[in-house]
């Protein structure tokens, strides 16, 4: 159980600055997701944590001990930071048990830690198999077990689910979350998939262009994003121009209570599509809209709408196709409050 603290971490590759002063705290025993688009520096951050790269500036402390920065560079193998790479990267020449025992010393390898972590990832009895005899999901589970086995200070997961198909991904994500939690491990998950980050992490750190834009619990990130970019990156967003006044904003959808911007004047407000409700007929507090399109997602659907003034918005509905045929005139209203930023 360790806390990881990064202060002002800078990493450059020639003219490119991959990390531009990253400040970050990973609380002990929690799973923190580092979320960002490709090229934001999240993989570099992971490589710096692991010790594969040297910092150009800043400091990384593990449990209060500086492992990088200020001329120090504790080599990877002395950091006790285990990595789970994208494709699992199991040692092809070693059996599952030998893979898992790789990070253990001789005595521990003969103990029951190997079986313990195998059970933890749901693969009890698979110790004698060779990696090529496993499915992609099983390989990934073994990779996690291998990382957990030596009880590292920190487990780094580098987009470990990206190569798996969607059905498998959700289950595995959950299982691995549970395995980490059961083992009391501290973890950092690097991902570009906001659904993954929000669903499994205790904390989410949003990274853009080598800087931390926002850090906090998933709900905060989703509901109170730091800026419109974060809002759009972590979920579907309806961004509307509005005028704020006394805790409320006048929008094309009517007046909506707001949080965030305290001053009055021109603002941008954020609504999540699930806050937009479609009602069959106009009632007080609703505005008229026309259905433009209907994107079916199975469990729900996104409905594209055009308001009378031409503003386009999106509503998420539990699918009931009959309520909103394309071209139909409907009425919409807004539930809850909106996040607002000065325009």
């Amino acid at each position, binding site marked *: 159980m360790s806390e990881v603290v990064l202060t002002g971490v800078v990493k450059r590759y020639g003219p490119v600055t991959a990390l531009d002063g990253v400040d970050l705290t990973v609380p002990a025993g929690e799973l923190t997701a580092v979320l960002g688009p490709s090229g934001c520096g999240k993989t570099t951050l992971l490589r710096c944590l*692991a*010790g*594969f790269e040297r910092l150009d500036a800043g400091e990384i402390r593990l449990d209060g001990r500086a492992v990088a920065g200020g001329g120090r560079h504790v*080599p*990877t*193998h*002395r*950091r*006790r*930071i*285990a*990595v789970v*790479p994208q*494709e*699992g*990267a199991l*040692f*092809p*020449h070693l059996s599952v048990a030998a893979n898992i025992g*790789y*990070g253990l010393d001789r005595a521990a390898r003969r103990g029951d830690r190997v079986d313990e972590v195998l059970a933890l990832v749901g693969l009890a009895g698979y110790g004698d198999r060779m990696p*090529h005899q496993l499915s*992609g999901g099983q390989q990934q589970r073994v990779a996690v077990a*291998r*990382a957990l086995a*030596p009880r*590292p200070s920190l487990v*780094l997961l580098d987009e470990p689910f990206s*190569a798996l198909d969607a059905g498998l991904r959700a289950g595995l994500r959950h299982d691995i979350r549970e395995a980490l939690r059961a083992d009391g491990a501290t973890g950092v998950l690097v991902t570009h998939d906001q659904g993954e980050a929000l669903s499994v992490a205790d904390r989410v750190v949003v990274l853009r262009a080598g800087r931390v834009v926002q850090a906090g619990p998933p709900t905060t990130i989703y509901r109170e994003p730091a800026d419109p970019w974060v809002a759009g990156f972590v979920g579907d967003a309806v961004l509307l121009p509005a005028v704020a006044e006394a805790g409320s904003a006048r929008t094309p959808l009517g007046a909506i209570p707001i949080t965030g911007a305290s001053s009055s004047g021109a603002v941008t407000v954020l609504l999540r599509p699930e806050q937009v409700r479609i009602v069959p007929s106009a009632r007080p507090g609703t505005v008229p809209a026309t259905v433009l399109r209907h994107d079916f997602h199975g469990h729900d659907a996104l409905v594209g709408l055009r308001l009378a003034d031409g503003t386009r918005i999106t509503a998420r509905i539990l699918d009931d196709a009959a309520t909103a045929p394309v071209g139909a005139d409907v009425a919409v209203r807004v539930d809850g409050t909106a996040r607002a930023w000065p325009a």
Partner: protein
Amino acid sequence: MASTAAVAVAVVPLAYLGVRTAEAGLDRIVAELWTGRVAWLSLRSLGLAAVVTSACVLLGVGSAYLVTRTDLPGRRFFAVLAALPLAVPTYIAAFAWVSAFDGLAGFWPAALVLTLCSYPYVFLPVAAALRGADPAQEEVSRSLGRGGWQTFTRVTLRQIRPATAAGALLVALYVLSDFGAVAILRTDTFTRAIFVAFDLGFDRTGALVLSSVLVLLTLLLLTGETVTRRRGARYARLGGARRAAARLRLGPARWPALAGLLGVAALALGVPAVSLARRLVAGVSRPGALAEVAAAAGNSLVLALAGAALTMLLALPLGLLTARAPGPLTTVLDRLAYLSHALPGVVVGLSLIFFGINVAYPLYQTTWLLALAYATLFLPLAVGSVAGAAAQAPPGLEEVARSLGRGPWGVLRTVTLPLTLPGIGAGAALVFLTGMKELPATLLLRPTGTDTLATELWTNTAVGAYAAATPYAALLVVISALPTWLLVARSGLLDKDDR
């Protein structure tokens, strides 16, 4: 650091040539080199290298495709057969051809014999690459409307391009350095001129000045190859289940294909075999006691093994560096290792005499100095194999290993080496069998009184005792066949189909 040691070994002959050429003085160098004869010899050597390399690429890629990608009957048998000429030294093959077809001599016969002996250098890596290549790319090509031939030329050939280029480079350099075939078939090349310069008036200086031109020619080839090589071409397929490509149904075309492979085997293996057998029957000379033959075989084995071991030891760091830290410096180091590969054995032998006498006298005329000569000569064979295998193992594995608490040595021992082992094995096998066949450097550097199969063969044929020479030749080929078989097995060509 360790790579630098390897390269240092490879450049011993260059240093030697530098010293001796400088001694010759500018006037002598100009007189020796500024002649139409040198220009003519250069063109001829390069011409021979070009012809043989092209023919080897055709033959090597063709037979590799047939045994890996078609439903040819008996393809595993043909895979071994196609690699086996590697066990036949060019001097045996050339001698056999001259015996079989009287008056055979000149450029084209030499090209034929050299091609037959060296096309496995292309066949082996290409066959391995064809087996490992991702069939998805070919499938995409076909789905986009490209026919079989177009897919082959536009996708398959490009996938195997690095393997083909590596093999072709080895062939070209080998042709530059070969003496056996060109001497027996009387083709004027640079290497023959160098040997003749030694014999004619015992003209060491002239021979060495000529050799420095050979280094320049090699440099030319290497630069050409490096320039045309696509950068960062790494075709390793990471993850995903291994899937074999669909085999091409040959249909009636399998008869000409079979005839072609059998024909090549007949020329490359049959002619030498029949010719040696005829010599054995015709002569009355017999080799010494069985003990002598056995001793020669034992010495050959030990020397070739020592050479292979030392070469691998030196090649390992360089090969790993090439695979793991590619960059301009690495490229230069890697290319330097190739420079001595095209030098005739006699020049490398003399340079190691120079080295042994002046630097490592305790090693002089011991197994180790000869092993070092083999390392100097055959380093590229080993480096290529190691780098190839290391490039196939994803570097991510080593990072994972480090993150699990293993230090650099631990990672090397538990991950890098085991994964590179097939490459190390292949490199060792290649160096071993090339070392078995080597003659000029062996003659100069062997411990006094040590006879090998190759030297016995030379001794007997020099006095026309062909019948006595035959068992040594046969034994040489048979012993070399074992590592050849290992090489084939290692390329996965003997595996059962995965489907």
